[in-house]
């Protein structure tokens, strides 16, 4: 084999190897995020705790209602004067990316149920121009939601000195059918979204198998 042919072969093999390492390619598995716990000798992966919320359509939504597909989650409140509009813009970008893809939904939990009634969430969703079969806006118990945010690795706390009364991070989280966190990105940084989109595709491929 000529030296030229040999180097072409090596280059080709390296290209295939490099492509196979790209997130989102078939056969690539996303990690399960969070520390596993051991109970009576049984190791359990980190999962989102069971929850019950109301959607913008007054429908009762539990973690079981979401288990028929994967979902993209964030935490927000409608009167948030700081990072929420920026994060929502990126959620909307993800909505537009996956609006025709079955098995992917978006879920936004309000941290401020006192002001964010079902009616208000309904108007909010309408103003953004999205429908509940693709994007759920959920309201429920405030303290439970603040604890639930921990499961998604989102920092959220009530703070009267913070703009709007709540401090929270702008993470966007990817959750699989088993309620496990598989990826995340920063909703305040649009440059992190393309890699996140690849991760959503990777998880869809994994769930299809």
């Amino acid at each position, binding site marked *: 084999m000529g030296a030229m042919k040999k180097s072409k072969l090596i280059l080709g093999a390296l290209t295939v190897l490099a492509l196979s390492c790209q997130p989102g390619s078939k056969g690539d598995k996303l990690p399960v995020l969070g520390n596993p716990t051991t109970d009576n000798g049984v190791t359990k992966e980190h999962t989102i705790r069971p929850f019950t919320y109301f959607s913008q359509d007054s429908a009762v939504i539990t973690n079981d209602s979401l288990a028929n597909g994967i979902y993209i989650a964030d935490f927000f409140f*409608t009167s948030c004067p*700081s990072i929420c509009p920026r994060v929502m*813009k990126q959620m909307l970008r993800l909505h537009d990316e996956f609006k025709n893809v079955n098995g992917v939904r978006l879920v936004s939990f309000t941290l401020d149920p006192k002001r964010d009634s079902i009616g208000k969430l309904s108007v909010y969703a309408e103003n*953004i121009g999205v429908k509940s079969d693709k994007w759920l806006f959920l309201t429920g118990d405030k303290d439970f939601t603040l604890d639930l945010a921990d499961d998604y690795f989102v920092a959220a706390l009530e703070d009267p000195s913070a703009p709007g009364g709540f401090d929270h991070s702008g993470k966007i989280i990817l959750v699989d059918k088993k309620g496990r966190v598989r990826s995340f990105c920063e909703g305040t940084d649009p440059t992190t979204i393309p890699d996140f989109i690849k991760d959503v595709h990777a998880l869809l491929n994994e769930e299809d198998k």
Partner: protein
Amino acid sequence: MKKTSKAFLVLTCLALYHSCQDTFTQGQRIYSTLCANCHMDDGSGLNDLIPPLKGSRYLNGEKEGIVCIIKNGIRADSLGLTLKYMPSHQKMTEVEMTNLLNYLSTTFSSGKPWTLSEIKTLKKNCKP
């Protein structure tokens, strides 16, 4: 032309250039601090919730009222049909508002120049 006259001309041009840069920079800074969180860095807004500034008819003067909107803000619809809301900026000076509007106009619209005297008149006519 005498040497001193030439130097004076150069210095005047430089001063003018810098003053233009400063006013533009102030407008940009005000936008980043007070507006970009909702209207976004590129002025694209968020569908019907936060109107886009890109190509807005308010900026090229086709629609009146942008000065009053900045000054008084927009109250949420009492009927609850929209959550459109904007905080008021009562403390923004006329100079700051002129610089902001010129930045917005240049960046997101046709570039209609806004003058200080125009802003003063429009602001005076805003309902409290």
